[in-house]
């Protein structure tokens, strides 16, 4: 079979909603796009541990501490799970981490904002995980088997993440004046970044068309963003939070909440590395990765010494 026939057959399988598995033939572009997207997803889970970890030691109750720790652990677990799903495409985790640290692989820009008060932990769970759920539910339908299955598994935990975040916000909104102010402040700072998580408008998205054809994406950025807004606005109102968008209004015809323009200059500036925490997140990751080098070496040496011993005793 020549390249073109293979490509046609591949596309036919995609069109028939078949899942592509690691051993199946796939075009280079498909593999590359998935590696880029899945490793970026894995890195996001891991880098996201930093802004949330920032409040673990200061969590306001034993219960809150336990929930936050469990949540961050889930995210790390998602990272591990996604790294191994990506490894099915022929790249290993060490290489992915190198790409991240050299700036050749990205992670979600939303984690380049700082967590400044306890309500930020609520806002991240509710808004950031909330946006992630919308996106990941879509990705669970994607054509690559291991990615789709990873998303199904991950989505189950994301529901808990979103609920715990919303609960934090809700509790603070029924609390003291200072607590309500913190909650609204967090809402003001996280609302727009959460909307940006869905990426640029479809007309400006570099990878969208091809990804749609290959069913790596099955719905457009704008459609997903709208779904998130519709869900979230009512939740905000329910606990008395104001959405920081003067143009927000309900459209009775489309049954959508229409919202004001997104600040794409801010978005691109952060993507390019100029966000408030880009440098901090990366230098943190590199610092602790390097500080752990001797541990990884020791573990490796131990395994090697063990095998040597075993061969001698045989």
């Amino acid at each position, binding site marked *: 079979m020549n390249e073109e026939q293979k490509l046609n057959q591949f596309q036919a399988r995609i069109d028939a909603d078949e899942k592509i598995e690691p051993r199946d033939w796939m075009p280079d572009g498909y593999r590359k796009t998935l590696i880029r997207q899945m490793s970026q997803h894995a890195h996001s889970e891991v880098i996201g541990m930093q802004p949330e970890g920032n409040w673990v*030691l200061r969590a306001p109750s034993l219960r809150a501490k336990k929930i936050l720790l469990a949540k961050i652990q889930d995210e790390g677990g998602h990272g591990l799970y996604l790294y191994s799903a990506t490894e099915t495409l022929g790249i290993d985790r060490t290489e992915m981490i190198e790409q991240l640290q050299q700036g050749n692989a990205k992670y979600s820009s939303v984690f380049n904002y700082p967590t400044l008060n306890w309500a930020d932990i609520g806002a991240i769970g509710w808004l950031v995980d909330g946006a992630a759920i919308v996106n990941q539910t879509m990705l669970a339908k994607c054509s690559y088997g291991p990615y789709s299955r990873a998303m199904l598994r991950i989505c189950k935990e994301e529901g808990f993440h979103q609920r715990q975040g919303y609960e934090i916000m809700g509790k603070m909104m029924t*609390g003291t004046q200072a607590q309500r102010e913190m909650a609204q402040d967090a809402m003001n700072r996280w609302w727009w970044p959460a909307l940006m998580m869905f990426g640029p408008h479809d007309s400006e998205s570099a990878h969208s068309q091809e990804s749609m054809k290959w069913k790596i994406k099955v719905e457009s950025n704008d459609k997903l963003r709208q779904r998130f807004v519709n869900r979230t606005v009512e939740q905000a109102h329910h606990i008395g939070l104001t959405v920081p968008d003067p143009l927000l209004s309900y459209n009775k015809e489309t049954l959508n909440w229409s919202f004001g323009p997104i600040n794409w200059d801010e978005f691109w500036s952060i993507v390019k590395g100029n966000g408030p925490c880009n440098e901090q997140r990366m230098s943190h990751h590199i610092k602790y990765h390097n500080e752990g080098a*001797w541990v990884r070496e020791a573990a490796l040496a131990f395994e090697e010494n063990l095998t040597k011993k075993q061969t001698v005793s045989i």
Partner: protein
Amino acid sequence: MNTKDALIKYCTRLADNNLILGQRLAEWCSRGPILEEDLAMTNISLDLFGEAESIYEYISTLTDNHLSADDIAFLRSEREYSNTLLVELPNGDFAYTMAKQFLYASFAKLLYTSLLNSNDETLKGLSEKALKEVKYHIRHSSEWLIRFGNGTSESKTRVQNALNDIWKYTDDMFEMDEVDNELISTGIAFDLKDIYTQWNFSVSEILKEAKLTKPSNGLSIKGGYKGIHTEHLGHILTEMQYLQRAHPGAKW
């Protein structure tokens, strides 16, 4: 000292050990040498917070001052915490943390095992549950000690230095006073001297396997159960109690 007061004090020591060690371990969050270990440490930290919470809840039923588990956990001053000194020591490097973990978990396992025979049903139940978790904590930390001792010369040096440094705080775990005497006489708790003998034995076994030298007993620093701490505890509390102190009475 009456039995109830002794029980409250005893439980506070136990709960504070869990809380402070849990807080220290949580410092590793996003800082582990490898993602799997990051998760292992926060997982253990989560276990410890859970144990602490159950014990504080028990304490709160024993006292009549209407303090909740959270009030007890977060609203005391340095001198009112009665954890053993070892758990409040800074984390140091990964070898230092694992050495601390191992020495404490080996103690905790024997302590909880002894409490399975306690006359106090709640304490017995709590110990049963904690024991399942602490067995994993020992396995996790002892495996690292063995790896380090049989790994590279760097890892061996690091872990040996850690042990040498921490050793002077280990006696503090086995300190006894009128609290213990009261509870021993009523069959609620047991003699820590016996636990020390077993601890010494099981620690030596692992150190042998790790080809590490057990430090000699020289200087020993004590006082945790009496609320005489190292300078580190105040800083742990400053961070841990920040929100509760800044917003008194707020519910979260």
